[in-house]
């Protein structure tokens, strides 16, 4: 039919197409191809049989059919003393125990040591996302939460790495992890981050993620204090494809211990899927195998929760909940948990914020593993969930929820001085060890630069040469300490020594160790003792204050001093001459403008940044052009827009008036109307222009001629004006209400504009 409506698309879909979310691609659930978060038909049912104290079968597999992972778990993870009891318990009952604040953590940890991977999965998959977060908060090993930073550089620039490591340490990151764009730069990157993180208070643990053997050598030279690159996988084929076995990895973990270096393993949902050997099992089941394996290896902790597999995991239904469940399994097994939140799993900032929130409010040994403290393009691991760009968003979330994400805001001047000190320190070390001589221009550009695209510094090739020389000459941390001290960086030299000394006692090898205020905090001496409200980790008043001090807070003094900056300029433009109590008007075309108590006396600008003289002038111009006569009364009895307007209308000869507050909110009112039933209102002062005020004046005048003019509409683009202005508005309004005197009548005010000499 010819009159059929022809519309082929609702354009809202085009709007949605343009949003960052649409860059994310989502996968269909397909267990046969490994796309299943919590459950797959190929997952085994929980089961364990013991014969003569030995494990005869586990999760449906007979002992002689065990693959390497099964065998390792049976040999080193499962505790035959506890297993019969733990495996016999109803999974629903154990799930309830996990969220029961009266069941102690120790009891649950003990039970986990007797559970097979399938049993652990059967329990945690019964919890919804909130229950998982709650259980995580209760089960994480160390009471005090912490965080880890990535400090990397697209140019592998030692100067910028040092500066960025110093800022990361200044923000309070407990650990800093680096890696390289060019593998040959490993030693230089390690040296640079180490020196940078020694600026300020000591205690930042540091690792350099590189090839296994080299990482251990860098550690032995005293440059690094921990390692987390010991990757494990949930299927045998993935493991052997990664050129390792559970035994080789466990051997490596013991080797790190023997060198006094803190170590954790790495695993995470989606790894086996990406490697192509998923055996059609669910992500969570495979991860449970990884975690049982890690506990059996005797490593103190894990980095899990997606990790490199986070983006693919997040593409699957329930993927984000699955990552939370993985982390819960880790801490339930009593492993330190560096809980992922590293690989950027989405382009949507909303999904980023939602991803981090459960961890932020539950706390975690290391909330991110790590947080990209540098810009996205400088992250040699690939962008993190949070990056240098979003640092202040994270700091604000901490403040919003009064939740300790392990970070502390630092004043801009302090960040700059940390950078200067770090660049000077690494330059001194490079010179003293005869490795390189950074020029003044290089230092200056690095100190100021937000990212490596802005720097004039060493080329990556030059840095590789520096790095190879560090290695070839066998330079170690003692040489660095001596170089620092010789060049006047004694505090930094002392800080470095403190870090290396940690390995002598080995205290920091215990589960969940970090350094705070020069002391070790671990699951041994700072155990999570959550048992309901009032227990577990709580912010102290001092810590709350630290978290609250984000940048550019405003208070009354900031508002007053901001307004005072405009006082002199305004006094040159306008004078307000009070004339005593105002009479009622008689002119039938009069429009009274009722100004608020502080208008032009303590406040000089609207929230749109318009001078009040200009605003008043625009209103008067409008009234005049509309055929009206303006009269100005200062109100003392009220600062409320509606009552300013209504009083103005009542005092006006025409019965029409305008009320305006100093912040710019304005109204046209009419005598006899209900206070909040006005004729026109500009409620969004921050986006109201002089043209709008002039239009309002004209309309008010037209009302006096018996017309019903088209209302002036202030168009909004949907800005969150409340977020931008309400703190300021409330403070400004308090200044106005502070000046009100309910018994004082409206005052006739003669206004003179200096530029035109016009009066009103």
């Amino acid at each position, binding site marked *: 039919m010819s009159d059929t409506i022809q519309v082929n698309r609702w354009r809202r879909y085009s709007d949605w197409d343009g949003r960052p979310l649409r860059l994310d691609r989502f996968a269909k659930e397909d267990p046969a191809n490994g796309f299943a978060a919590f459950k797959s038909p190929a997952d085994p049912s929980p089961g364990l049989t013991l014969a003569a104290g030995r494990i005869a079968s586990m999760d449906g597999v007979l002992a002689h059919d065990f693959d390497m992972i099964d065998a390792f778990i049976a040999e080193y993870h499962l505790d035959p003393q506890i297993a019969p009891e733990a495996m016999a318990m109803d999974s629903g009952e154990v799930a309830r125990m996990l969220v029961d604040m009266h069941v102690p953590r120790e009891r649950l940890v003990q039970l986990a040591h007797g559970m097979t991977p399938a049993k652990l999965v059967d329990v945690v998959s019964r919890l919804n996302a909130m229950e998982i977060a709650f259980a995580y908060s209760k089960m994480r090993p160390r009471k005090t939460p912490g965080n880890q930073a990535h400090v990397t550089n697209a140019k592998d620039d030692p100067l910028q790495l040092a500066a960025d490591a110093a800022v990361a340490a200044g923000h309070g990151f407990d650990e800093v992890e680096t890696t390289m764009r060019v593998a040959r730069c490993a030693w230089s990157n390690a040296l640079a981050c180490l020196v940078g993180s020694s600026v300020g208070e000591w205690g930042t643990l540091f690792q350099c993620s590189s090839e296994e053997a080299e990482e*251990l050598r860098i550690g032995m030279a005293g440059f690094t204090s921990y390692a987390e690159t010991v990757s494990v996988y949930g299927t045998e084929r993935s493991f*052997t494809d990664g050129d390792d076995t559970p035994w080789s990895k466990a051997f490596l973990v*013991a080797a790190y211990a023997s060198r006094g270096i803190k170590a954790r393993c790495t695993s995470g949902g989606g790894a086996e899927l990406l490697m192509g050997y998923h055996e059609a099992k669910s992500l969570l089941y495979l991860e449970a195998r990884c975690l049982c394996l890690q506990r059996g290896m005797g490593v103190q902790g894990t980095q899990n929760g997606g990790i490199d597999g986070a983006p693919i995991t997040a593409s699957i239904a329930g993927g984000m909940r699955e990552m939370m469940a993985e982390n819960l399994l880790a801490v339930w097994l009593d492993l330190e948990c560096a809980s992922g939140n590293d690989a950027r799993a989405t382009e949507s900032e909303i999904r980023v914020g939602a991803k981090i929130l459960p961890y932020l409010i539950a706390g975690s040994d290391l909330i991110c593993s790590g947080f990209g403290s540098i810009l996205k393009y400088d992250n040699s691991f690939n962008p993190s969930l949070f990056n240098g760009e979003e640092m202040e968003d994270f700091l604000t979330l901490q403040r919003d929820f009064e939740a300790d994400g392990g970070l502390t805001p630092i004043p801009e001047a302090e960040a700059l001085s940390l950078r200067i000190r770090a660049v000077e320190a690494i330059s001194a070390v490079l010179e003293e060890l005869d490795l390189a001589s950074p020029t003044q221009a290089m230092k200056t550009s690095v100190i100021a630069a937000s990212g490596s695209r802005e720097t004039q510094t060493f080329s990556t090739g030059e840095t590789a040469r520096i790095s190879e020389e560090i290695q070839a000459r066998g330079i*170690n941390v003692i040489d660095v300490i001596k170089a620092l*001290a010789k060049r006047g960086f004694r505090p930094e030299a002392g800080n470095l020594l403190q870090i290396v*000394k940690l390995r*002598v*006692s*080995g*205290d920091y090898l215990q589960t969940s160790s970090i350094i705070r205020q020069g002391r070790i905090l671990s699951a041994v001496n700072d155990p999570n003792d959550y048992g309901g409200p009032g227990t577990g980790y709580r912010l102290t008043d001092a810590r709350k204050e630290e978290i609250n001090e984000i940048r550019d807070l405003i208070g009354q003094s900031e508002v007053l001093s901001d307004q005072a900056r405009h006082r002199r300029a305004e006094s040159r433009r306008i004078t307000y001459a009070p004339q005593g109590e105002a009479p009622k008007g008689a002119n039938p075309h009069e429009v009274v403008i009722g100004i608020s108590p502080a208008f032009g006396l303590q406040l000089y600008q609207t929230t749109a940044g318009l001078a009040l003289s200009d605003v008043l002038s625009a209103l008067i111009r409008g009234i005049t052009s509309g055929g009206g006569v303006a009269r100005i009364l200062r109100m003392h009895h009220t600062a409320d827009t509606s009552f300013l307007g209504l009083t103005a209308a009542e005092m006006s000869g025409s019965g029409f008036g305008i009320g305006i507050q100093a912040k710019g909110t304005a109204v046209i009112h009419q005598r006899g109307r209900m206070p909040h039933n006005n004729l026109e209102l500009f409620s969004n002062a921050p986006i109201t222009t002089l043209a709008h005020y002039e239009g309002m004046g004209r309309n008010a005048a037209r009302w006096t001629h018996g017309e019903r003019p088209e209302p002036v509409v202030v168009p909004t683009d949907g800005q969150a004006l409340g977020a931008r202005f309400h703190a300021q508005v409330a403070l400004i309004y308090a200044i106005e209400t502070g000046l009100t005197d309910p018994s004082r009548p409206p005052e006739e005010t003669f206004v003179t504009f200096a530029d035109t000499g016009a009066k009103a």
Partner: protein
Amino acid sequence: MRRTLTRADFPLAETAPDQVQGARGKPLEALTLEAVLQGDVTIEDLRITPQALLAQAEIARDAGRAALAENFERGAELVAVPQELIMETYEMLRPGRVKDAGVLRERAAMLRRDYGAEKLAEFLETAAIHYQRRGLMPG
């Protein structure tokens, strides 16, 4: 004989600094910046000792972390093992590197004999059984 350590002894650097010593016998208090600058402290003094790892193993066991304790005990046995030998043994444990279980068992015997590494030896012997069973020995 010394008593078994518990969680209450943690951290050792605070509870017993005089008993914590580096690889060449220097106590923690002697490891000062001055001593480093005068050349009295080298990287060797900053190495962990088997004693420290065994002490940490006791603390871990008391804290209910037997698997962690065993890792510390394996680590204690590796302290004296040179870096090259560690990397060589690690290489042998990687998939398909050794042709038959006998090679792994020989390495286990060598570690037991030359370094008193009883736990590590057992660990390697267990690996050999499973490597053989799973066909990781191509020969």
